[in-house]
């Protein structure tokens, strides 16, 4: 049609055509009769579809794949608790990224911490956290939080190259003086009040931080300044390979492959277990009731310690002011490891807190004793002999009769238990929201923490907690 080229030239000419001619043009160009005055383009009028058409449309719909058949479960890290020291590793909690936002004082529920590598071990100290990975890369350990005693090593400040950071807000790599940095793997990390220990598979134990009581395993230097210190001490004078390191408040415990336990640090409460109440600055083997016994686990966080033998027997030493060892002795300090004759069955896992202790036996039942909120309601505040926490509080029910607790951890006055289904239960004093239950009140019996994943491991600190979690799918 003669008017067709006019259309392509521009819209102004199109609008000047009288209505009837426009209509004719439309019909001519597009064939199908549209509604008068309306250009429908490719749209079709809605009409009722038969069931066969609906079925065919459904069959021809595209299928989306979100996850492959052999998808691996992802490792995640969740943190919660007190944020001001930067121990949670999320800088926006301390220094918000927008001017109008306020710094977050407490993170009351689990918050995901993104890490560069898969984290295999985590430990919480007094205002700082260490996380490590079993990688062969150069960077194996990251630290965040308080660094006033160089417990996170020397973190060089970017503004002034001679000074170090006092607070580390993000997981920052800790440079370890390894002989074979591309071969050695870090197995475990542990944090105390102001010192930390890093266990490697071939190069022994590295210690950093405060050494005023010899807890780093090196000689105590008077008037040593611990902040911005570059000293990372390597401990290799053990008889055999060290397989577990534990930091108490101001002392350190080392367990070797052979089942022997070494200790160093402050001993005023007898927590070094060496038979005296003095400071020890070099790791020394423990004797007492554990001499000759194959110890498979050591636990400590405050000033008292527990050890578990391969036969499931329990040994304890250290502070007993809170009835931790009152079942065998009246004294409030025990400086030699003593056997604890508790009738709780064969012990699989033990944890020592500031004032209370907990063990898990073979059947998965949790026993607690000591002082404080022990987990059996507000009425039980202290006991010298272990009391069992009913397994129904850990998820046992008629529908899931094989649920039991697989591991137990202690903070300074809180407990954390993980059951075999990967659910985390916490109880104890809720210091600055460290329980992660969303409330600020103390929790007198085990309470489930909602985490979007299956909990593999927990690390408890004074006022924060870190969990290693595997995603569901």
């Amino acid at each position, binding site marked *: 049609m003669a008017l067709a080229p006019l259309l392509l030239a521009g819209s102004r000419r199109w609008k000047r055509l009288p209505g009837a001619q426009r209509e004719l043009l439309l019909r001519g160009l597009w064939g199908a009769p549209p509604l008068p005055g309306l250009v429908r383009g490719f749209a079709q009028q809605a009409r009722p579809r038969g069931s066969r058409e609906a079925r065919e*449309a*459904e069959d021809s*719909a*595209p*299928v*989306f*794949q*979100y*996850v*492959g*058949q*052999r*998808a691996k479960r992802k490792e995640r890290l969740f943190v919660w608790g007190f944020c001001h020291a930067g121990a949670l590793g999320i800088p926006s909690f301390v220094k918000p990224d927008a001017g109008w936002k306020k710094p977050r004082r407490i993170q009351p529920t689990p918050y995901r911490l993104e890490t560069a590598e898969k984290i295999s071990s985590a430990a919480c100290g007094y205002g700082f956290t260490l996380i490590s990975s079993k990688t062969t890369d150069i960077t194996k350990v990251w630290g965040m939080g308080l660094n006033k005693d160089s417990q996170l090593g020397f973190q060089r400040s970017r503004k002034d190259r001679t000074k170090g950071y006092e607070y580390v807000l993000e997981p920052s790599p800790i440079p370890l003086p390894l002989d074979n940095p591309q071969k050695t793997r870090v197995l475990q990390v542990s944090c105390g009040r102001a010192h930390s220990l890093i266990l490697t598979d071939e190069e022994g134990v590295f210690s950093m931080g405060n050494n005023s009581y010899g807890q780093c395993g090196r000689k105590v230097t008077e008037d040593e300044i611990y902040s911005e210190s570059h000293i990372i001490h390597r401990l290799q004078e053990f008889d055999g390979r060290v397989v577990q390191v534990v930091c108490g408040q101001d002392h350190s415990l080392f367990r070797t492959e052979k089942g022997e336990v070494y200790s160093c640090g402050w001993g005023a409460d007898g927590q070094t277990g060496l038979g005296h109440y003095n400071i020890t600055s070099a790791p020394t083997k423990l004797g007492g009731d554990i001499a000759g016994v194959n110890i498979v686990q050591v636990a400590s966080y405050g000033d008292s310690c527990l050890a578990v033998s391969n036969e499931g027997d329990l040994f304890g030493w250290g502070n007993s002011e809170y009835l931790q060892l009152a079942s065998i002795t009246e004294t409030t300090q025990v400086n030699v490891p003593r056997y604890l004759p508790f009738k709780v069955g064969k012990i699989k896992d033990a944890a020592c807190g500031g004032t209370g202790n907990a063990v898990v036996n073979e059947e998965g039942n949790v026993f607690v004793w000591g002082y404080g909120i022990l987990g*059996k*309601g*507000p*009425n039980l505040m202290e006991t010298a002999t272990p009391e069992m926490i*009913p397994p*129904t*509080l850990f*998820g046992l*029910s*008629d*529908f*899931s009769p094989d649920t039991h607790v697989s591991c137990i951890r202690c903070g300074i006055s809180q407990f954390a238990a993980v059951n075999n*289904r*990967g*659910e985390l239960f916490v109880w104890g004093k809720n210091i600055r929201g460290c329980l992660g239950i969303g409330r600020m*009140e*103390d*929790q*007198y*019996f085990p*309470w*489930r923490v*909602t985490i979007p994943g*299956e909990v593999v491991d927990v690390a408890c600190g004074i006022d924060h907690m870190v969990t290693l979690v595997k995603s*569901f*799918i």
Partner: protein
Amino acid sequence: MAVARAARSGLNGLFAVYKPPGVAWFRVRDTVETLLLKELNSLEQPVVQQQVRFVPTTVEGNAGKELTLVATQLPVLAAHPLVRGPKFTSLKIGAGHRLDTKSSGVFVLAVGHGNKLLIDLYNAHLTRAYTVRGLFGKATDDFSDTGRLIEKTTFDHVTRDKLERILAVIQGSNHKALLTYSNIDLKTQEAYELAVEGLIRPMEKSPPLITAIRCLQFAPPEFQLEIQCLHETQQYLRKIVHEIGLELKSTAVCTQVRRIRDGFFTLDNALLRTHWNLQNIQNSIQESKIKVKLELQRSLGYQSRSGKRHTDMDQVAESELQSTEGTFASNLTDKMR
């Protein structure tokens, strides 16, 4: 007449019927009412009384037809059912927790004085058990397989182990919500003791809560779950199936929702369509009378004694009545005997 009245007096109480799928709940209620009324009305044989009336009729007399009164026996129509209408025109039948059109299962009805018990039954906040069937691979707008298709996904990565992991998480978070919505002060020794025994349950209005969930069958793409829940609706259960699909990084729709237990009425107590008649319903009311009385007595007793007490009524009754709370569906028949 006496028979019908006796029958009518026996119809006071609670009973359960099996609601078939595809039928609205009020139609079931109306059908039951109609059938009962039909039976009640048929019980009565219309006794037609006779009366003697003097009726003017023409008689062959002396001088042709004469009008005289003749005594005749006539039936009394005043009490005739065709004149008066049927004796029973309506029955008060109330419904307990409703089932929507697509779902099926145990549906509690109350007749006569039993309607008052329905309120008490509601306030007892008993749990209900459902079997829910789902299908992996597609998502629809109303979470059932008859809705409009939204998306199709693969599901070859889904295993029974992953499904059970998700179910454990659902059960865990709902268990936590049970404790939170019960409005108990968690710092008391009482709260600890109730938590240990598992007796805590909200006794007021709360969002839908799942007390227990587990997988009965798993044959991809189909699977069947048993869910025990509180304050729920059937659409909520379909939404749970949809969300399970999403958690598994796939999609799922619900194909069947079937209630197997409502409080203490189970599938064994529910009457099938062929058994909806007077005798069966009367028997059913009689059987459940004792259970209902004990159950509600306990519930009211507890609530009056200690304000609003948050104890699990089913658990309490379990020891005496062999209730079905917390037991597997397969053991239901054994426990009921």
